[in-house]
């Protein structure tokens, strides 16, 4: 932790960071996001294998949008989100630094999203064997079984929007669910409204989701939301090739190419 605290102290002292978004000890054994702008508080910060929140979610929140110099503790999932967000031009006014853990669990300072993108390399989002197994189990179900499964799951959704709030890629200043003229998505938490919301969210995540798992982790009801996003990642890979996180890859639903192999698009 000493090296970590030293890096943070230097960032704050030099003014390279006005705000540091890291982790601290939370309730029980939990780790939670910590916000520090005073070098005297660096001792609070921890960065270990239990730290799991994707802190890049805060960079686009209205509370932190105006802060230019921010340092963020970045797990591999956070790095992927940062690179995608940078690719979507979300950090044009920002001077960001990142603190990552190298293979030997030493804190490493990376300055700028471009450098972070290089550090990450051309990472392909790949599912773990456990995730593949879960998906395979799910795909073995009949269409009716799957529909029954989602009806059961989504009937528990209360539309607290924790999945949306925790998702780094959900940064719209006004979400479709909050537009009421016209009303695209029905507001009440009913089975139909819940389906509409989750389908809409899935569509907006296609080719953008970095599989950080924040939506599912945030859901107070434990809904298996990652089944949806992971299935999309597989579909994208099957139709369009590996889902690579880099500054210059465009999202699937945002891209048009005149030489597309599908005829209907022309």
């Amino acid at each position, binding site marked *: 932790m000493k090296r970590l605290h030293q890096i943070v102290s230097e960032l704050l002292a030099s003014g390279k960071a006005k705000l540091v978004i890291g982790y601290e000890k*939370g*309730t*029980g054994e*939990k780790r*939670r*996001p*910590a*916000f520090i702008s005073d070098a005297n508080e660096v001792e609070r910060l921890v960065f270990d294998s239990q730290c799991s*929140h994707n802190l890049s*979610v*805060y960079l686009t*929140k*209205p*509370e932190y949008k105006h802060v230019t110099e921010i340092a963020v503790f970045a797990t591999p999932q956070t790095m992927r989100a940062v690179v995608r967000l940078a690719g979507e031009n979300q950090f044009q006014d920002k001077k960001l630094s990142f603190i990552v853990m190298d293979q030997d669990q030493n804190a490493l300072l990376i300055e700028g999203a471009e450098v972070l993108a290089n550090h990450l390399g051309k990472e392909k989002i790949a599912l773990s064997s456990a995730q593949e197994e879960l998906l395979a189990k799910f795909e073995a179900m009949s269409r009716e079984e799957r529909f029954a499964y989602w009806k059961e*799951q989504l009937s*528990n959704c*209360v*539309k*607290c*929007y*924790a999945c*949306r*709030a*925790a998702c780094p890629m959900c940064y719209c200043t006004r979400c479709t669910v*909050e537009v009421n003229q016209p009303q695209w998505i*029905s*507001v*009440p*938490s*009913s089975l139909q*409204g819940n389906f509409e919301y989750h389908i809409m969210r899935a569509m907006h995540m296609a080719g953008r989701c970095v599989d950080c798992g*924040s939506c599912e*982790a*945030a859901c*107070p*009801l*434990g*809904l*298996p939301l990652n089944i949806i996003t992971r299935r999309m990642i597989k579909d994208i890979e099957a139709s369009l090739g590996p889902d690579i996180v880099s500054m210059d890859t465009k999202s699937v639903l945002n891209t048009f190419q005149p030489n597309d192999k599908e005829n209907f698009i022309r």
Partner: protein
Amino acid sequence: MQTENYTITDSNLQQLLQALLSSGQKVVAPVRANNKVLFKEIKSASEVCSDHVQTTLSAKHLAFPRTEVLLQYKKTGKEVTINDFPFDAVPQTFLWGSRPCDAGGFAPLDGIFNWDSKDAIYNKRREQLTIISFSCTRHDDACFCTSMGGGPGNTAGSDMLITPAGNGTNIAEIITDKGKALFENYTSLFEEAMGADKEQYLTKIDKVFDTAEIKAKVEAFFESKVWKEQSARCMGCGACAYVCPACACFDIQDDKHGSKGSRLRCWDSCGFQLFTLHTSGHNPRETQARRWRQRVMHKFSYMPDRINVVGCSGCGRCSRACPADMNLAEHLEVIMKMEAEKI
């Protein structure tokens, strides 16, 4: 009424539940699903989960559903037909296996829904609800009922309270007329009180603060930077409000389908960015810090002022559900320890 004490064995307790189910009554109890425990309507006594500390969602939906149809309308030419809320269709419901903090959570709702106008729909659902709570024999890090004036064996809000006393027996307290009515239907299942003090069977939760002290503190620290510090990690979802037994904010929506539709009442949350957004575009609570302050002030200052009840039963659900680990008891403790000069 004066609380009456009896004893009931584990097997007779099961029989009581079975008898309610067999007589076709609607019974809602904690059920395990998805590694979460939720209050659901049950058809069999075996569905009931009893090894949990707390359900993820409260039982408030039994009186204040997350979405409910207040009325339905239909236009035919120039004629409008309105179908009012079907009061007679609200079934008698037995809430089985709630905790004292669930039962206690209905007091703030009762206050809010009867504050100025009396909410006939809410009151009808409450009238039809009989609450059979079970005292807590264990708790977790998030529980703080004793600091909110409740406790693991508190009777307030329950119609009947069962305290497991070991050796297959339970202490049964009949607290209200509704509890008495249930008891009288199944008197043979109960035995004379054994005279044991229930306290010895309850889990011990330290009282850390006092509601009157909190009220004074949050009011004194209205302008403090503490709200911003504590809410820095708040992501702006509605999880805390939706799991809370005492949060009563709602949103009225019209679900329109051509010439007919329904007027709905849906849960809402003060944590949402849209919650206080004015038509002009101005939002008096523009930041998460102001929304967090509102949440705390509402529960611990405004509600005691207006309806004479604290808007929190210390169930700890918000702390368990928060994806950013905002722990209400911990935050209140920080505020309690603050001194004037540190504003």
